[in-house]
């Protein structure tokens, strides 16, 4: 596939299409910011081979263990406030194959619903001991694990009395560059989910894929509640049994 000039370790199979029926539309009547930002032209299809662009090479980048513990990685003079939680699970493709070694990135609001970001002007306190950013590398089976603080809900200006449900932002790559997943994880039983246009932008049948499951086995006795959440990325376009 590659010639002598190339030493690429590219994934050799094209990428299965993104399941558009399980994803939000670009223009969403409930989420106002989409109106002038979502593209109106149809996406242009490409030959399958064009998808064979490997995800970034992260092999030279070292991820330290403490980066996955948001209750420790931002400490200034003590512990962050709020309810400690463990969020853990697997990164797999739709054929259940682990995506080993991929970097999972996390950012979030603090327990009071405030982000450590200059454009967040919500009248809620910052926590001097909490940055709200974490990172970890999935292991050989695609397993990842974070320790953090349960984020608070916060108001936004999308419509009158609009509140975002508590959520964690995640970003990760599969084996291909185009297999980019940036998403938000929500918590089970949150009453705000039924009112949140961003969550509701996902077609109904796929919404539960964004809600973590409370898991007593992930709970650390006397320390933190556990939530399970798996990421399912796209698989190869042609499955092995179809190849014969």
């Amino acid at each position: 596939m590659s010639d002598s000039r190339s030493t690429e370790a590219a994934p050799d199979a094209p990428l299965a299409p993104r399941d558009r029926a399980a994803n939000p539309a670009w223009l969403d009547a409930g989420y106002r910011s989409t109106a002038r930002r979502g593209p109106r032209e149809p996406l242009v299809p490409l030959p399958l081979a064009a998808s064979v662009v490997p995800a970034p090479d992260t092999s030279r980048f070292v991820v330290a263990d403490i980066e996955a513990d948001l209750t420790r990685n931002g400490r200034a003079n003590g512990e962050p406030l709020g309810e400690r939680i463990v969020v853990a699970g697997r990164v797999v493709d739709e054929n259940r194959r682990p995506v080993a070694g991929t970097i999972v990135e996390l950012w979030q609001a603090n327990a009071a619903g405030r982000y450590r970001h200059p454009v967040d002007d919500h009248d809620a306190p910052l926590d001097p001991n909490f940055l709200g950013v974490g990172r970890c590398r999935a292991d050989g089976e695609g397993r990842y694990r974070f320790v953090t603080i349960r984020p608070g809900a916060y108001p936004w200006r999308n419509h009158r009395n609009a509140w975002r449900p508590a959520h964690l932002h995640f970003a990760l790559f599969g084996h291909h560059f185009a297999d980019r997943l940036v998403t938000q994880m929500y918590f089970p039983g949150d009453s705000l989910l039924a009112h949140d246009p961003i969550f509701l932008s996902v077609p109904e049948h796929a919404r539960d894929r964004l809600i973590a499951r409370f898991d007593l086995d992930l709970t650390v006795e006397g320390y933190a509640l556990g939530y399970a959440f798996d990421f399912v990325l796209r698989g190869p376009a042609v499955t092995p049994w179809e190849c014969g």
Partner: protein
Amino acid sequence: MSLPNRLGQTPTQTVGPYFAIGLVPNRIALPFAPWATEEIATEEAEGDRVTLLGRVLDGDGMPVTDALIEARQRNARGGWDAAVGFTGYGRAATDEAGQFRFRTIRPGVARDDEAPHLWLIVQARGLLGPLVTRAHFADETERNARDPVLAAVPVARRATLLAEPIAPGLYRFDIRLQGPNETVFFDL
């Protein structure tokens, strides 16, 4: 449509207005080291140095000041692997003028029918998923004419994928999310 044994893909959500915390913490002076920046290649890297500069604009032609752009390109020899001074992957966030830049080298190619290019993924508040596009160099006329990805784009819209030379080693590539001359985004 999907096979019964397959898992459902995790849906995307917007990157939101606060992504710098997690993805470009250097941008807001957060003490957390990013693993990618707008510098795809340093002076040490093999290849001709180029800078890609552009703006992200919304459907009213207004600058999008909170967009995340990720770039992926081949090294000078046409491979995808990282090399000395070269990561092959960049991340940039737009500024108050909606402007972003990548400092890099001119990408190599792997085949004669391929033109040098950078794959770009655009995300922002108001975008519920990643938009994939590709920046070609307008002065690579012959190679662009042979490139199969450009060929897949309707002729009238191809110019939206061409980065224009504005100075030696400096190219401008604006991204229009919507409206007249909307940038071509790929179903990839």
